[in-house]
């Protein structure tokens, strides 16, 4: 069941792919805003520069949290691409995320503190939807294993249209895109400086950036599962979903955390109940 090749490919290629996605992201964003934008290799230059900077810390424990965040994010993605249990993948993701939050808390700084609280609210907001997505996949394919879900021969998205839409909704949170980029943002500045990453600098910040690349690849892999019956359609769908997220990012302003939380839960509750109920009623479950 566990595919070692998937693990190796993920660990080696994700930083490249994730970095490129980030570069393309910035290019397209720039065009949407009427700018030329940097080269698509810019994220690599940025991270490279971060690693050349002096290592400064707010306290000695910070690095531990960030390294744990990094390692468990890789673990999450590796488990996913190895075809492991999707619920365990989600739990590992939560664990990784909690380490980032703890790192922000430990700094004892007002901005990173608010960032940490908001990051937790984000986790609370998106987690039910992600679990329901996994549950929905199980109901259709009768397996929690990513490998089995990926080799299901019919388009999952047709069975799970509501859950797919709900997942796209919370994906905005996970990709740190407006209007849901409340805890930290790719955009230059926000009302809480850099939020959860305020107190990280130099190589530590570089590591967080790379971790985010890994996360992006993993999340797009999750999107791919909905279309896995046909690899070509799957890849096209992933690209379209990412473009949609970019459009939303550039077309909307950041909202308050209350709205993030309420709307995500509302979406999750409605699509979760309706979609799962229909599946049960149809006897798919």
């Amino acid at each position, binding site marked *: *069941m*566990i595919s070692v090749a998937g693990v190796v490919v993920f660990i080696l290629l994700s930083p490249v792919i994730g970095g490129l996605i980030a570069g393309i992201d910035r290019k397209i964003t720039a065009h949407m805003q009427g700018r030329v934008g940097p080269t698509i290799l810019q994220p690599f230059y940025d991270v490279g520069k971060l690693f050349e900077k*002096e*290592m*400064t*810390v*707010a*306290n*000695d*424990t910070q690095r*531990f949290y960030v*390294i744990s965040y990094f390692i*468990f994010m890789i673990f999450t993605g590796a488990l996913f691409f190895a075809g492991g*249990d999707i*619920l*365990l993948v989600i*739990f*590992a993701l*939560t*664990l990784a995320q*909690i380490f980032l*939050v*703890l790192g922000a*808390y*430990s*700094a*004892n*700084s*007002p*901005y*990173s*503190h608010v960032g*940490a*609280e908001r990051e*937790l*609210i984000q*986790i*609370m907001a998106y*987690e*039910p939807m992600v*679990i*329901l997505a996994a*549950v929905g996949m*199980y*109901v259709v394919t009768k397996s*929690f294993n990513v490998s089995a879900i990926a080799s299901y021969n019919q388009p999952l998205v047709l069975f799970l249209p509501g859950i797919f839409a709900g997942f796209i909704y919370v994906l905005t949170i996970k990709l740190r895109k407006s209007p849901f980029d409340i805890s930290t943002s790719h955009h230059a500045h926000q009302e809480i*400086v850099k939020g959860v990453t*305020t*107190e990280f*600098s130099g190589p530590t910040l570089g590591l967080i950036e790379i971790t985010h690349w890994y996360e992006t690849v993993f999340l797009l892999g999750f999107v791919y599962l909905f279309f896995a019956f046909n690899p070509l359609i799957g890849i096209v769908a992933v690209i379209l979903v990412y473009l949609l997220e970019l459009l939303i990012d550039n077309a909307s302003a950041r909202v308050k955390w209350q709205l993030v939380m309420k709307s995500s*839960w509302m979406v*999750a*509750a409605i699509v*979760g*109940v309706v979609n*799962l*109920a229909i*599946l*049960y009623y149809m006897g798919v*479950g």
Partner: protein
Amino acid sequence: MQLLLFLILGPLITAFFMLLVRKEPERNWIVKLSALGIGVVTVILLLSLFDKGTLYYSFAAESTSLLMFFIEMAIAVFILYLGIKYKNYLVTGLILLQSGLMLYFELVYAHSVDVKYTLFIDQFSIIMALIIGIIGSLICVYALGYMKDFHAHHKELPDRRNIFFFIMFAFLSAMFGLVFSNNLLWVYFFWEITTLCSFLLIGYTKTEEATSNAFTALWMNLLGGVGFAIAILYLATQTGGIMGLEALLASGKALVLIPVVLIGFAGLTKAAQLPFSSWLVGAMVAPTPVSALLHSSTMVKAGVYILVRLAPIFQATFSGYILAFIGALTFLLASAIAISQSNAKRVLAYSTIANLGLIVACAGIGTYEAIWAAILLIIFHAISKSLLFLSVGTVEHQIESRDIEDMNGLIMRMPKVAAMMVIGIAGMFLAPFGMLISKWAAIQAFIDAPFGFIFVIILAFGSALTLFFWAKWMGRLIVVTLERENLETKIDSNIWIALVSLAGLTAITCFIFPVISAMLIEPFLLQTYGNVTRLSQDNIIIMVMMLFLIVLLPVSILLPQRKYRHLTPYMGGMTTNTDLSYNGAIGLKRDLKLSNYYIIPWFGEVKLQTLGIYLCTGLIGIMFVTAAYVGVIV
């Protein structure tokens, strides 16, 4: 058989010793020795009986039952006296009703009821015995150190430690009796003893608040006791005197559904499910070892124990689903309320109620997968929760507060205790620790059950809520502040014994849970349901990998590493100082305090609890109606 009797009578003998001994050194060694003895005997019990299946014993039933009846009546008179003395007419009425029912049963039906086996033991009983024997005794050891400090802090309260320890050990004895009894009358007897013990322990300080909360606990549990008594009377009159647990489980669902639902109702009160959650929250006024004991290894666990025992009857009945729904709602609402609490003990209380809700949900669904999850929940919850209570109690005595906000930067002031608290919290909600394994098992169990998707959805939302309140608490603890004064030096050695053992247990059970499952839970399920479940081998390997990672990563901190330049936090302006303060107008220095989110408008206690009380009371009504429908018509 001897082991069983030792476990029931041993703590009782210790209890009477406690009553006699008034000198501290003597009490210390008696308690430690008994704790060790009880712990060792439960382990012997495990080693000698885990592969023996279910064993039944017919032990001197007649005489003991009679003795029990007299003790019951004595207790009733005692409670009646207290009820009248404190003018609590609810309690008075309930105890009159309850003992009236039992008296009627004893006079009219008792002679016609013949139970072949009074005691029994199977793998589930062994698990419960281990929880009571090991965690319960550790709490008693902890109490030695804690109660010493407690009376040093509260000079105004009379030192009644001999009575305190008497009740603690009597409580353990009653719990052992409860999980080993096959005769329902005996179960009922021990059930009532635990009610009385918890009442006395909650009211230990005899302050006005303690007394009033103790009476709340009493009336709620007496109400459950009334349910239990009616169930016994029903069994005696309607089913031809089925009074053994094994006979009850073997008989047809329709025949015994009504009494089982009544006992289930008693289980709900004892497990502090909505609408009865307030007694457990109120029980927080008691000294911390009491809370730890009530929450982890005794009392509430008695409630879920009986529900899990009766789960095969609940399975696939409408009443069972309603029961599960009460549990699931309690899980959701209690988790939400926990977010709004800043008092650490109240957070723990609501988290207990929530987790018990999950166990009740599993029991109500009653499939073998659900019961597997329920038993795992019982084990892991007992360990992590006792660790958390004991560390909160320890912290409280050092910093004079049990508010989570005051635990800011605890890692700097009390590094070891804070680390244990972090382990306990991680054990409650993070992969790859125990509670998360159980929640995972619960998701898998629910999804395969009829109507299961409703429960999965509730679980998905509820666990997101638990994540929020645990993580923000953890965040408070690990803040690195400038304080460097270590407050840990004054902590009593007995307290360390208990804390270190429990922290070790939290980690070890995660490593060995596949063994626990294979040795105890799976044989139990096979015997009860003819079917077993477990995590797949791959998943277990992955979990163990995660565990190793999580154990190794903190060690990396200890390795010698380069000293990096420290910078002060960014404060966004010139007018700031390095110690988290601002220079205000006219040269005033203004301190900055960071505090967690509590989101009271959404998760306020009163609002949600009221909602829960209405909903769950209604559901209990429906549960009774559906049971009556099945029982009477079919």
